[in-house]
């Protein structure tokens, strides 16, 4: 379970003060699929960064399974992210020069998974996204949809409990976008992992169990969940 309590995040000082998040609170049950919906600049990305410990809010707490990760030291947050979370981004961020295999291997290396146990995990993840024939291809030679599928493989290889997806279909056409959506929801359902999608695409948001509507750093509405 993820509890977000009274998060406040501001940028700048005095005259230029900009409030990105003002007193945001909600709870996400384990295994849920959640959409954080809002226009660009609404604070939805900041919310995702804060929930994953990448960003540090002025006040508030993010309690995951009973632990407030905002109080962790940098090392502990890093370790927590590498073992429990993963990310998918709009612009893929796959390493074009590396092979698909080595792209997927990165989270395992960061999490210090022993070498001998990596191979099966990597091949399984690539198989799950339908890239089993691209193991040795360089990521730059893949199409956009394949790159995002590779990113999904990289995100799920270490079996994270929480999967963040920041506009995962934003750079894809509807067909490949649908493939990626299916992969994400499939992982969510099969593994019982929490999926948090940041998007402005209402069609994608409607497929989620729960929708958090955000505007100007404030929660407008929560559909399908409980507002605290």
């Amino acid at each position, binding site marked *: 379970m993820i509890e977000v309590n009274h998060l406040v995040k501001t940028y700048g000082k005095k005259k230029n003060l900009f409030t990105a998040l003002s007193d945001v609170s909600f709870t996400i049950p384990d295994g849920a699929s959640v959409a954080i919906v809002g226009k660009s600049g609404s604070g939805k990305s900041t919310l995702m960064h804060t929930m*994953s410990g*990448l960003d540090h809010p002025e006040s508030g707490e993010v309690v995951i399974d009973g632990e407030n990760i905002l109080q962790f030291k940098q090392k502990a947050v890093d370790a927590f*992210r590498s*073992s429990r979370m993963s*990310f998918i981004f709009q612009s893929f961020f796959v390493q074009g*020069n590396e092979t698909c295999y080595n792209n997927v291997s*990165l989270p395992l290396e*960061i999490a210090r998974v022993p070498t001998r146990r990596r191979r099966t995990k990597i091949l399984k993840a690539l198989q799950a996204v339908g890239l089993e024939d691209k193991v040795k291809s360089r990521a730059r030679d893949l199409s956009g949809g394949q790159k995002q599928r590779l990113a999904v493989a990289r995100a799920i290889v270490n079996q994270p409990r929480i999967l963040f997806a920041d506009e995962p279909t934003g750079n894809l056409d509807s067909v490949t976008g649908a493939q990626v959506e299916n992969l994400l929801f499939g992982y969510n359902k099969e593994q019982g992992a929490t999926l948090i999608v940041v998007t402005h695409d209402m069609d994608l948001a409607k497929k989620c169990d729960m929708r958090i509507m955000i505007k100007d750093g404030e929660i407008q509405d929560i559909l399908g969940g409980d507002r605290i």
Partner: protein
Amino acid sequence: MRRLDIVRRAGRNLNQAKARTLLTSLAIAVGAFTLTLSLAAGNGARDYANKLLQNNIDPQALFVTKDDSVTSGRGGSTKLQEYSENSVTGYRAGSTVKMLTRDDISKLERRSDLTQVVPIYGLSPTYVQFQGNDKKYSAPVSYYDATLTNEALAGSVPKPGVQIADNQVVVPEEFAADLGVKPKDLINKQVFVTFTRAAQSPTNEQIQQAFLDGGQQAVAALVKPEMKTYNYVISAVLKKSALALASIPQLHISTNAVRLANDFSEGNSATAGQVVGVTAIAKGDPSVAKEAIQKQDGLSVKTAKDLQGVLFTFVGILQGIVAGFAVLALIASVFGIINTQYISVLERTSQIGLMKALGMSRRDIAKLFRYEAAWIGFLGGLIGAALATAGGVALNPWITEKLTLGEGNYLLVFAWRQIVGLLVVLILVAVVAGWLPARKAARLDPIEALRTE
């Protein structure tokens, strides 16, 4: 992240920017090349110097002087020296050098810890003649050094440590060639060495007496320089050695013969019997004998080891100069690495952001960039050292021939331990150069980094 995984990723990252990596490491390669050569030349020069010393100087040998400026290479004193009755001074090349007196020499001869005390007289015969040849030659004459391993081209030399007979002379190979005679034809031929003794300044009474006795002619005879010729039989023609320290070809006669000739030619001079130096063989530990002589007789003593030290100092200085240029090249390459790595960090902002998002620690990200720098250093070092070694090994025979170092002696001696050490140092240099860019990468804000594109 495990160290091995970081090293592998660093290596792959570089492999993907081959041209840039190669060009950056070439800067280091220049320094590595020069350093490898200077190390090799130092090894070779030290080896060669050691061989020279071993072939020329008995490890037990001591070189005794009055004035340590003779052996220290500083030259004599050019200052005004205070006169003292017991320390006679001679003048060499415009500088004042204290000479050993007969007293000093006999003191040394009486010492129980020394044997074979040989004063180094500088004999300058007026002329030299060879049997069967009318021409007069000028040739230097010195004593036969029994401490050397002398090799005879013709005739025979005594066992090491044994002097030749007082009526014998040993001729260098070069003289045979100059005379146009086969070495073996010289054996048992005679050599006539003529010395001139400067006339004594006669007193007024002697002049008067001479004038009364024999008139003008008797006075002229009184101030006429006296000449004397010594006969020697050639016992051997010495083979020229590439490892000989004294490169000047000269005639060698026994130490007794040298003393006789010197006594005659210097007989009337004010500095008669004085020498710049004396060689001797220590009976026990040469450094113990050195201490004792310095303390008891107040003389300056150099052992074979000291001489090695002097030679090695010269080698070290030359080597240092070359190494200095190499270090300059390395410093230049450091800035090359810093520059390249900074650009690399900027290019890979989003990659760094992603790695941070996936939980890679700052420390590991810094390591990744430092290891990339280390790879560059390793590669550059390897290229430079390999080129230097390959080139050196290929050129060695040619250098040996040009410098007449003698068969089997090489100027460039490569030691793999040194090269490995050099590589380690270069890797460290590269890591230090990569420090700032690595720190920049580690401090990158992941949110900012992920916002790019």
